[in-house]
């Protein structure tokens, strides 16, 4: 994103709207730190600029900078998946897709959330750690498209330095592997410069039981009291 110096009145109203703090207002003009800008377009859409000085230049859509928009602006669908946002349908349509079946567990690690942002150097540390354990990265996740090799989790060199609001590592595995995955994620987390929000997806058992709950607790993870629940209205129901 850019701010036209001539049109800008230097009012500073846009400054607090940037989710990554990339707008600075000095000497009566606002500017955007292009290295920090994740191209989410929040400033353009929501900031009350009195002079219409904020714009998105064509350069924002050129590779590899275009990765920033793809991962940060939810109004722009991913070219590869057609889904807006950074993930996939994941649990939202699991009753129909059966992506995470009974007896399996899905996990997602959303790097950069909440509200810090990330680059792909950080993400790669985790994708490579997980690849060593042998997880199945979600093929429809836009991040998977940026991997040079899903067997190693290595991310393409030309995008590693791009900053984004968040990027989601999604994979599916067998519960027995959690005993390797959880410690590996925790250990790798110590090397991460940003933050990540972590979640686990499972089919519900009889009586709305949560099959992996005890296992997660034994591994030192305490799920929060709120969650996202697929209420089972989708049809046709996927086979388990």
């Amino acid at each position, binding site marked *: 994103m850019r701010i036209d110096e001539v049109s800008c009145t230097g009012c500073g109203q846009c*400054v*607090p*709207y*940037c*989710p990554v*703090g990339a707008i600075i207002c000095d000497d009566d003009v606002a500017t955007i730190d292009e290295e920090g800008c994740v191209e989410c377009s*929040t400033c353009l859409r*929501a900031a009350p600029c009195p002079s219409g000085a904020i714009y998105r230049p064509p350069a924002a859509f050129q590779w590899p900078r275009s990765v920033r928009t793809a991962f940060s602006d*939810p*109004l722009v669908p991913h070219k590869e998946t*057609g*889904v807006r*946002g*950074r*993930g996939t*349908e994941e*649990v*939202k*349509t699991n*009753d*129909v897709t059966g992506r*995470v079946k009974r007896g399996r567990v899905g996990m*997602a690690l*959303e*790097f*950069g959330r*909440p*509200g810090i942002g990330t680059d792909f150097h950080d993400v790669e540390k985790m994708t490579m750690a997980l690849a060593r354990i042998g997880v199945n990265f979600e093929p429809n996740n836009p991040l998977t498209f940026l991997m040079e090799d899903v067997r190693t989790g290595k991310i393409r060199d030309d995008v590693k330095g791009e900053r984004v609001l*968040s990027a*989601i590592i999604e994979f599916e595995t067998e519960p027995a592997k959690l005993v390797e995955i959880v410690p590996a994620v*925790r250990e790798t*987390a110590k090397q*991460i*410069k*940003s*933050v990540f*929000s*972590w*979640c*686990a997806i*499972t*089919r*519900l058992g009889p009586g*709305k039981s*949560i099959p*992996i709950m005890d296992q997660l607790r034994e591994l030192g*993870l305490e*799920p*929060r*009291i*709120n969650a*996202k*629940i*697929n*209420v*089972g*209205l*989708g*049809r*046709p129901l996927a086979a388990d």
Partner: protein
Amino acid sequence: MTHSLHRMGTAESLRDDFVLIARPALGFNDKGAGRKIGRMLEIIFEVGPANIGFLETGDLLPRGFDPAEVISKMNDSSGIRCSFSSREKLKEVLRRFKEEDLGISVTVSGIIDDVFAICDEVGLDPHSINLSLGVHGNTGLLPEDEVLELTTMCGHALVAASLAKKGIEDVRCGRMSSKDAALMVGMPCACGLFNLDRAAAILSSLSTGDPSKGA
């Protein structure tokens, strides 16, 4: 990802905060889904969400829109993302969705026990759950809990911590009502998951120092 499972706050603060997402499964049941999504929207509009937004069209409740026009724009890849601040309204929507049996997947985010109870009351059999395992990594970078209560309500991290802080300060200093500050803070949330009622309650409690409503 709408991140709705990671909304932060105490049980008290989260009690009347629900997110509803509905979408077809691309490549599975999306053919003809536009009409069904339209019907689901009619129900949601009749009941009244706390907020709703459409990434496909840019329409957002606080900006105002014509419901019939929004419905006419829905197509087979459209989805619904909205928030409710009333348990009874959410329950009514789910009851009517079950009655219509349109076959479009629905997820509800909220306190697990509360969502399960609502499902029981409506006669729904929940299928899967996405559990939040918290935030990890360099957590020292995170802002204060009271800021996170507001920013984590945006489905796509578009509500800046700096904007939430401005809203908190504006209400504390009497420059803005909590309702107006909630609108200001929530405006960047394009998907409509930012619960304006809950935000106003949080901002109001922070200005009066009522700990039961804050983080």
